[in-house]
């Protein structure tokens, strides 16, 4: 997978997030402050600009560019979290021009670890981690089991989607939704939903 693959991934993220912007904001209205869709759309619109301003030469450059832009332009909780995650992805992939599925799995693993460390959220706390963590586990298994790229990525996407849906019955322990206590139960976590979209964009 070279820089073209990753820029394609980023383009696809931009497209789907713009498409789902209002749905994400609605989810955030239910248990947060009604800005998650707007925040990510603002951030990734800036990413599109950044990509055309300084076209990245390597996967690492592309992902670092995304991370820096999100940190600079999103704000809120999701800005630093997604931003640091993408920066960590870039750091792990270094300046290789071509990376393997295994490299990606390892990089994603460390990116999720970064989110855990920054936000202090564990799986089950009803955050983006609930979509990201299972996706990475699934991808790692797929690599071990020797799946083809496309199949492996689809397994990861399915795991992320299931993880997001699985946040519905959970009671939030991190982020704004935790203020609601039991009232946070019954709603999908907006960050988990956006994380699932981001992973799904890998196999568009």
């Amino acid at each position, binding site marked *: 997978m070279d820089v073209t693959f990753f820029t394609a991934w980023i383009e696809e993220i931009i497209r789907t997030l713009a498409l789902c912007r209002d749905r994400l*904001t*609605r989810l955030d*209205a*239910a*248990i*947060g*402050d*009604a*800005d998650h869709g*707007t*925040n990510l759309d*603002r951030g990734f619109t800036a990413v599109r600009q950044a990509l055309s301003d300084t076209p990245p030469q390597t996967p690492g450059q592309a992902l670092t560019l995304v991370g820096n832009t999100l*940190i*600079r*332009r*999103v*704000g*809120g*909780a*999701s*800005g*630093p*979290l997604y931003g640091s995650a993408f920066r960590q992805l870039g750091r792990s992939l270094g300046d290789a021009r071509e990376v393997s599925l295994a490299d990606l799995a390892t990089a994603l693993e460390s990116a999720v670890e970064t989110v855990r460390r*920054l*936000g202090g959220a564990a799986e089950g706390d009803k955050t983006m981690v609930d979509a990201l963590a299972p996706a990475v586990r699934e991808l790692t298994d797929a690599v071990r089991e020797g799946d083809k790229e496309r199949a492996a990525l689809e397994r990861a996407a399915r795991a992320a989607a299931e993880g997001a849906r699985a946040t519905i019955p959970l*009671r939030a*322990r*991190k*982020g*704004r939704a*935790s*203020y*609601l*206590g039991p*009232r946070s139960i019954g709603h999908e976590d907006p960050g988990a939903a956006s994380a699932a979209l981001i992973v799904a964009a890998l196999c568009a």
Partner: protein
Amino acid sequence: MKKLINHADSVVSDALTGMAAAHEDLRVDVAAGMVRRATPPRAGKVGLVSGGGSGHEPLHTGFVGYGMLDAACPGEIFTSPAPDPIITATKAVDAGAGVLHVVKNYTGDVLNFEMAAELCADEGVRVLPVLVDDDVAVQDSLYTAGRRGTGATVFVEKIAGALAESDAPLERVAATAAEVNARSRSFGIALTSCTTPAAGKPTFDLPGSEVELGIGIHGEPGRSRAGAAPARELAAIAMDAIHGDQPLAGDLLVMVNGMGGTPLIELYIVFAEVEAYIRGRGARIVRSLVGNYVTSLDMQGFSVTVCHLSDELTGLWDAPVHTPALRWGR
């Protein structure tokens, strides 16, 4: 949705343009998203920087000026600012004595201010944070992101700001700021939701017969709902929560704060009830604020914030302040 705006995306920048035109003793950098005093910081004075999502006006930009903040960074509506403006503001107001970051306890605010502080430290600017978390509606436990920062932010910014004007060192300013927070408690009640320009419709639906108890300042739903009730009962609900968390005693600084859409005449009615409640508990209000200070866009409702004063804190509260939203003594 009907609002006095030009476009949902330009609300914050258009409002900053208005602030720039209205307050010549402020320097407003619309592009960078930063408001600071027109006069550069005095050498040796600790700088105070705060910030957070917009939609809480006058917080924080309305509290920039002599005796209070040196700079404020307004983010998008209900979205904490990114690290960049915080870094710019922090460097701009550092006069060699370091900078205090007044941070409301929300995941987004904490993360962005932390990132900014790290980068400032790398560049040799001493930064200490004070975390404001006064909202008793949220239980501080493993099961939450901790208590929210709400009304006490005004007290922290005013009192720490006054101390900084006296050239107290950073550690002392930070310690006093933390003390104010520790001595303060808040509780809020909403009669209506608020409508963000981006969403265009109320964040939550509240039937005409109900009120939302224990709300934050971002239109988040509260902990529970109750039937609409007379001001006396609503004030008692708020005061019971505060009194139950930190028993009322001695001399108090009390703010009855409007959420943005509630008229002043109603806030005075609530203040009358709060004052009677406090008197009934043997404590006494010696300083007060009644008005819109920490708002949630057009939400109708109120919050009460109580701070247990010491003589030192009372003196700092009375010290001169000259900002758009809080002014006395000069």
